[in-house]
């Protein structure tokens, strides 16, 4: 029996990811020995971002799913990088705050001026921008000496980790449980990639511990996701055929 992950509301998921995400960033900055725990704590930010993309894109955006993800990640990335211009040591609060505000304003424009007709537009775009800002802030902490060199890769990696879960699961049988599990697998894959790069780049201890925990997480989440896929396929196996055949 696979436990359900569909009951948690979008808002609650964001609040949890915000609290534990800020904790993860502070942990990796001030207590590098706790980087394995910090890695686990940042994954909900990816889940919240992927969930927001799903909440927005399921209103029938089609090819706009990727645009929504790029847009949200651009809001988060622009806010975080702008704050980094002042002082990288300012902490996650200003970047995440600016991203949340920017997301809300952009969502307001989309809802009130363009009239997109998506009731959750303002809330979800704000949460998407803040979630990606959290993930980007965390990953930037792995590369304190060369943030501008690695920033484009971090931006693209986070964007793909939040847009692909819904885009990859899209279709008649899409459901939240499978999408969130794929998001968890992609979140751990992203932190594994960036952790490995940090280890190669000189931060051996932190980078290797982040990569090791992420690889373990990836195996667990990939198995969970595969089980969801298998269950959902069994549910629709007779589509188009009489049951007795």
């Amino acid at each position, binding site marked *: 029996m696979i436990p359900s992950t569909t009951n948690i509301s979008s808002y609650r998921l964001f609040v949890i990811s915000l609290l534990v995400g800020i904790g993860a960033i502070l942990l990796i900055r001030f207590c590098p020995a706790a980087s394995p725990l910090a890695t686990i704590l940042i994954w909900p930010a990816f889940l919240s971002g992927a969930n927001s993309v799903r909440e927005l894109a399921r209103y029938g955006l089609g090819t706009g799913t*990727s*645009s929504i993800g*790029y*847009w949200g990640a651009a809001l988060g990335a*622009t806010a975080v990088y702008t704050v980094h*211009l002042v002082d990288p040591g300012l902490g996650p609060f200003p970047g995440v705050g600016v991203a949340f505000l*920017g997301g809300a304003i952009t969502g307001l424009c989309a809802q009130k001026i363009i009239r997109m007709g998506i009731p959750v537009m303002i809330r979800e775009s704000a949460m998407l921008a803040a979630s990606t800002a959290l993930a980007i802030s965390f990953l930037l902490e792995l590369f304190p000496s060369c943030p*501008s060199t690695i920033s484009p890769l971090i931006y693209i990696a986070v964007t793909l980790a939040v847009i692909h879960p819904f885009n990859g699961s899209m279709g008649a049988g899409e459901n939240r449980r499978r999408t969130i599990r794929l998001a968890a697998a992609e979140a751990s894959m992203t932190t594994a990639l960036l952790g490995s790069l940090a280890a190669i780049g000189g931060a051996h201890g932190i980078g290797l511990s982040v990569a090791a925990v992420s690889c373990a997480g990836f195996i667990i989440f990939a198995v969970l996701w595969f089980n969801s896929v298998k269950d959902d396929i069994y549910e629709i196996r007779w589509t188009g055929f009489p049951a007795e055949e």
Partner: protein
Amino acid sequence: MMVIYMDPLAASMLVIAGGVLVGVCVHFIPTSAVGAMSASTGIATGPSMLSFGAGLTGILSASYAVDEGLSLVMASGAVGSALMVTLTILGSNIVNIFGIGVPPASGQTASGQSVLARGTKDIITGWEQKGFVTPGTDGHGMPVQTHLSGIAGGVMGGAGGGMVFYGIYTLIHPTMIDAISAAGLLAAGVFLINCVLPAYTLVGKTEGLFDQKIRRIHKTFSSCLVVSTFFALVLYTVVVLF
């Protein structure tokens, strides 16, 4: 090498103006998701992604001219971006004509709904469109008028991207060593935010300047103005007050 200094407020205004221009350019670049099946006039992708591609090319080419002043940055960005759009349209037309076997034809013009044209002829060449649209489709490929609209969009997007890039560079270069890469990254972010908003005004499909959806350009203008002003304000605050 010429180093340009600009008032931070003027640089912020440049970011706002560039952001709005970036948003408006999306209306001019012909795109359509169903263009992949030659079922509609336009390049086979979403409007925001193609505009972003053109914008990135523009920012990249603009960065080569960053020490030469604003006018050359804008010109360089405009040329790079327009070249990218032109080559994409050329490639799409080659696939449509020689791969699928359909001629470039404007669906809106063929149905008499083109904004500027009277009748069913291409406004530039005067070539008839009506008999060349496959029944059940909304045109295919990019005829001359649509191609020229795409080039105009590329010029606007590249120039706008160059303005955003130059504005941000001017704001941050006194305090940063690698200001060009940081400015490019932030300009790409502002570009992406501004070019996704119009895509929702266009509902994923436009034939460019001649499409009926060009009448919705005021919505794009207003929303991009608000969003660009917010980010320019954040940049100004960060750079000047801190």
